[in-house]
């Protein structure tokens, strides 16, 4: 039984990882079309670094990701802290809405925001993407911060209040330090979400603001290419790095 379950685990992990590992290996293969190994090369990575279109999309994506995840982290933290600390009218409704937003298929979020922007005559570009990405990341931030808060001993707030701390002092001196690992994780995960989002961006992006995931999408439609292998390997590496950092920052208590 033990052997069978180990084999099963191994098989599933192979299924999850072999395609990605193959992709990374091919990004170093010294041949444009062949599936055989023709020796190691950095050529595809060098080619990327001279592709000015891709670089400008990457810069756009990073600018978008940094702004979206910063604002989403701020808003999401306010939301999680309010849900956790206060009792207010509509608390359950807020909780439920956040929860619905996570489940809502991306395509519904994308198309409904497109309808909003076009009804309001709002130009599609950086700001429409920014609003969409903040809305996408917000519920994930709330979940990360909220679950972090539930591990905190509530008496600490009572104690601080008894000792005469004002609300802003509680926020600065207690909440922020306690939440820092959660904030880091939430920010990094939001950034990955923003960098990877295809469906929502597809509907709310405009012609004057190219972003990386959409450009990858249009490149990938044309087929397998070593340059895309190199580009996607880099993005995969960033994702792994960010997930690892957030994982370990959340784990240390």
């Amino acid at each position, binding site marked *: 039984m033990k052997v069978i*379950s180990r084999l*099963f*685990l191994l098989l*599933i*992990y192979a299924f*999850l990882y*072999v*395609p*990605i590992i*193959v*992709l990374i290996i091919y990004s170093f293969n010294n041949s444009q079309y062949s*599936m055989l190994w023709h020796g190691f090369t950095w050529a595809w990575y060098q080619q990327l670094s001279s592709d000015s279109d891709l670089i400008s999309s990457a810069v756009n994506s990073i600018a978008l990701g940094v702004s979206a995840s910063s604002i989403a982290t701020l*808003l999401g933290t*306010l939301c999680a*802290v*309010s849900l956790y600390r206060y009792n*207010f009218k509509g608390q359950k409704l807020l909780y439920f809405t*956040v929860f*619905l*937003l996570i*489940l*809502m*298929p991306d*395509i*519904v*979020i994308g*198309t*409904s*925001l497109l*309808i*909003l922007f*076009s009804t309001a005559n709002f130009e599609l570009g950086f700001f429409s993407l920014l*609003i969409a990405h*903040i*809305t996408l990341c917000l519920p994930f931030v709330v979940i990360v911060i909220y679950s972090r808060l539930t591990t905190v001993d509530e008496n600490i707030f009572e104690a601080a209040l008894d000792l005469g701390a*004002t*609300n*802003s002092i509680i*926020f600065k001196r207690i909440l922020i330090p306690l939440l820092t690992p959660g904030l880091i994780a939430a920010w990094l*995960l939001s950034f990955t979400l923003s960098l*990877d989002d*295809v*469906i929502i961006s*597809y*509907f709310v992006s405009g012609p004057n603001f190219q972003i990386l*995931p959409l450009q*990858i999408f249009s490149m*990938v*439609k044309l*087929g*397998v290419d070593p340059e895309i292998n190199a580009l*996607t390997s880099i993005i*995969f590496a960033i*994702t*792994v790095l*960010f*997930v*690892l950092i957030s*994982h370990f920052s959340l*784990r240390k208590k």
Partner: protein
Amino acid sequence: MKHDTFKFFSLSTIWLWIILFAILPFVLMLVISFATAGENNLVVYSFNLHNFLNLINYAYLRIFTRSVFLAAYVTVITLIIGYPFAYIIAHTSERIKNLLLLLVIIPFWTSSLIRSYAMITILKTQGLLNSFLLWLGVIHMPLQILYTNIAVIIGLVYSLLPFMVLPLYANIERLDQSLVDAARDLGANRYITFKRVIIPQTIPGIISGCIIVFLPAMTIFYIPDLLGGAKSMLLGNLIQDQFLFANNWPQGAAISVILTAFMLILLWLYWRNSRSKDRHEFL
């Protein structure tokens, strides 16, 4: 009091954001789904049901049923693979468990576009899977897998498996082990224990995993785009098509509305089947 200023500030900011960019867009979508597509304007406001009635025609119904069936296959496959997988991980020693879990979390956060692209290399006619099967001698001619529905299913299972495993894991992890032990003590065999004790306790995890897999399986339009053939149009592709190529927004909105209704029904099923304590631990 200062207390109240902060509370007021944060709650109003959050509500403002959610109302403006989540609720209002959805309400607009609902309104537009009853409108008509115009010649010059995209939308002519009116109230009629024809966008919904239109859907009851052969071509739409076929895409609809195909999407539902395909998504159901994907959901069942991920559940069949994911359940034992999550169960085994939950029952390994603490030390390995963290590593194993991390290895599921990484693909969870990795772009599914990138992962689907990686699948192309594997499924191509001269790809790794065919080479491997030829080498094994299982087949003598390379199989045409890419650009078929099979490839779409493989791609969706590959992309969505982590989304099934994580909620299942969270649920199995919290399983009341004493009930399992009690059942065994009372003479239940492994099968009965599994069916009568373990499965009922993990129903909420199963339903949440299924919701998180089923809906994207119908709507991630780039997977059928990349891996499927001309006949692999799914609900997501249909919505995309109505919005960007056919310029029939009301029709696209109507399909999105139906999709959302579908989600709410599944959610209601989840609500009915979970204890209130579990509801807060969803995800």
